[in-house]
């Protein structure tokens, strides 16, 4: 049931028409919001911190920190970001200066120009990207043990003169 006074969208009442005639509607630039992403367009500059409850894509420029632990943060190919980012996943295709901390993955694509330190569970940096910084991956507690076990298995199941070792020796000549 419709509430009194609230008109359906296609209802072009006289009052409304008069209002629009007197003052033409000029949309205020604002972030484009889809069901999943908020996009900051390439002609927009932001200075200040952002705390978010939905995914965010920066195609414009931004100076400030971003806090959105449960959502994804993307610097688009035309985006320029300077600040600290804390998000679920981060993808950088544009320019970024600052540190990234994620709950899972950081992806730096080949168009990216990135300077900063990264702390994540996993990382991918495509060939062609400029990268200056450091990467610290959260290690799973049992990873070292698992690797050691794997290495032991390989050693014990392969003969001493297994082909790979031979190849290495054949390949190389010590100076």
């Amino acid at each position, binding site marked *: 049931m419709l509430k009194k006074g609230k008109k359906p969208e296609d209802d072009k009442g006289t009052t409304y028409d008069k209002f629009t005639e007197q003052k033409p509607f000029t949309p205020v630039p604002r972030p484009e919001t889809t069901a999943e992403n908020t996009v900051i367009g390439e002609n927009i500059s932001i200075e200040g911190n952002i705390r978010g409850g939905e995914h965010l894509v920066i195609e414009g420029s931004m100076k400030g920190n971003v806090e959105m632990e449960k959502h994804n943060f993307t610097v688009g190919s035309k985006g320029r970001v300077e600040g600290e980012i804390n998000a679920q996943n981060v993808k950088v295709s544009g320019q970024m200066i600052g540190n990234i901390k994620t709950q899972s993955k950081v992806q730096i694509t080949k168009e990216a120009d990135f300077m900063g330190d990264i702390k994540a569970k*996993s*990382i*991918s*940096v*495509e*060939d*062609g*990207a*400029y*990268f*200056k*910084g*450091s*990467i*610290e*991956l959260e*290690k799973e507690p049992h990873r070292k043990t698992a690797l050691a076990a794997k290495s032991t298995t390989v050693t014990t199941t392969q003969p001493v003169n297994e082909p*790979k070792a031979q*190849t*290495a020796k*054949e*390949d*190389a*000549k*010590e*100076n």
Partner: protein
Amino acid sequence: MATPTAPAHDYSHPGSSFNDYTSMTLQMYFETLNKYSTAQVLDVGPVCEENITYFAQRVKRFHVCDMFLRLSRNRRKGLPTEKVWEHLDYAPNSFDGINLWDFIDHLNDADIGRLVNFCHTALQPRGMMMVTSFEELAAPSQIHSFVIKDGYRLNFRLQNHLDLPCYYRSNRIITDMLSEFQTVKSFIYRNGVREFLCIRD
């Protein structure tokens, strides 16, 4: 210091000799780094997806400063190389290992001097440096990254976006240039790759 060297000619390498290989140096390097639980390693590029993942999973903190791309960009713009070295602004004794790959093959003698001095300062005592260089006849005309595969196997991937000169140097010249370090192992492979594992005293 080393004798002056000339830029290499545009060698079109014979495809058959430009094969992947198992790197003894990489194996020794990792076996030593594995002894440190807090190892910090620097890679000077070029950025290679597999290598970044490989190292990041195995050391405490993996640093990357892609000097190949910086130099290449400067070269395209016709800018001097001096500014590029400012990017290597790391504190003394920062690293347990530095991966130089074949960076020295793309630097003139003066720039190699700068690089070696930087490495000597940035490495901790007993820190290691992994250096690779192509022999004259095997030297590719374009830049490739050394992609780490299982079992310390390395293969090559062309990096089309990079444009740097190539210099050929003999073993003697290279070891002279690295004389600030103790060269603990060096290998020559069938495919023309030479590897040097150096340690800071």
